[in-house]
C-alpha cells in the first residue's frame, strides 16, 4: 500500500520564478492538504482540497495556488517566488474533510536563491 508520495524531493529556483510541486495521496484517501514548514518551525497550513475544490485556506497570498485531479492527486503552484518561500513543503492526505489523522509525504525541499 503506497503512502503519500511527493515530487520533486529537492529543487532550487531563483527569485521571480514559478514552481509546481506534486502529490499523490495514500491509497483510499480523497483529501489533500498542503503545509509549509520553514526551518525550525511547525507546519503552516496552506490549503486543503476535496472533490477537486479548495475547501480551506490558510494565511498565504494568492501566489500560492493549487489543484486536485479526479484521481485525487494534487499540485501546489507558487508564482513569483520570494526568498522567504524557501521551505519544506509537505503534502498530507486523509479520508474525508474532517476525519482523523493526516498522513504526510516526505516533502519537497524548495530553495529560492
Amino acid at each position: 500500500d503506497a503512502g503519500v508520495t511527493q515530487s520533486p524531493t529537492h529543487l532550487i529556483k531563483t527569485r521571480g520564478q514559478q514552481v509546481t510541486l506534486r502529490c499523490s495521496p495514500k491509497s483510499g484517501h480523497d483529501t489533500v492538504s498542503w503545509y509549509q514548514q520553514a526551518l525550525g518551525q511547525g507546519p503552516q497550513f496552506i490549503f486543503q482540497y476535496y472533490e477537486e475544490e479548495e475547501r480551506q485556506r490558510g494565511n498565504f497570498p494568492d501566489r500560492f495556488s493549487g489543484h486536485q485531479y479526479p484521481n485525487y492527486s494534487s499540485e501546489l503552484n507558487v508564482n513569483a517566488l520570494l526568498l522567504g518561500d524557501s521551505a519544506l513543503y509537505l503534502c498530507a492526505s486523509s479520508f474525508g474533510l474532517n476525519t482523523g489523522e493526516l498522513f504526510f509525504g516526505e516533502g519537497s525541499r524548495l530553495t529560492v536563491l
Partner: protein
Amino acid sequence: AQSVAQPEDQVNVAEGNPLTVKCTYSVSGNPYLFWYVQYPNRGLQFLLKYITGDNLVKGSYGFEAEFNKSQTSFHLKKPSALVSDSALYFCAVRDPMGTNAGKSTFGDGTTLTVKP
C-alpha cells in the same frame, strides 16, 4: 482561532527514564488533538490522537497522551525512553465544528533527546 503551544523547545532525558513533552491548546469547541513525530529531513508520522472518550490515549511505539480539558493540555508521555525516540515532536489541534474545520494547527515542535 485555534492555536497550540509547546512551551519547551528541547527536552533531554536519560534512556530508561520517563519522558513528558508538553502541549497546551486553544480552540473554541471540542478539540481533536494529535501528536506527530518528525525525523531529520523526513515528513511527519502520526503517533496518536484524541477524538472523544477515554482521556488517556495510547499510540505507537509505547507513547501515550492524556487529554485534560480543564487545563487545555495534551501532554505526550512514555514510561521508559529509548535513544531511538530522539526526534522532533509536534502537537496539533483541530476544531471539527468551527469555520476552520479540516485545518490542523501545529505547534512549533519540541526536540526530544534521549541520552544513553
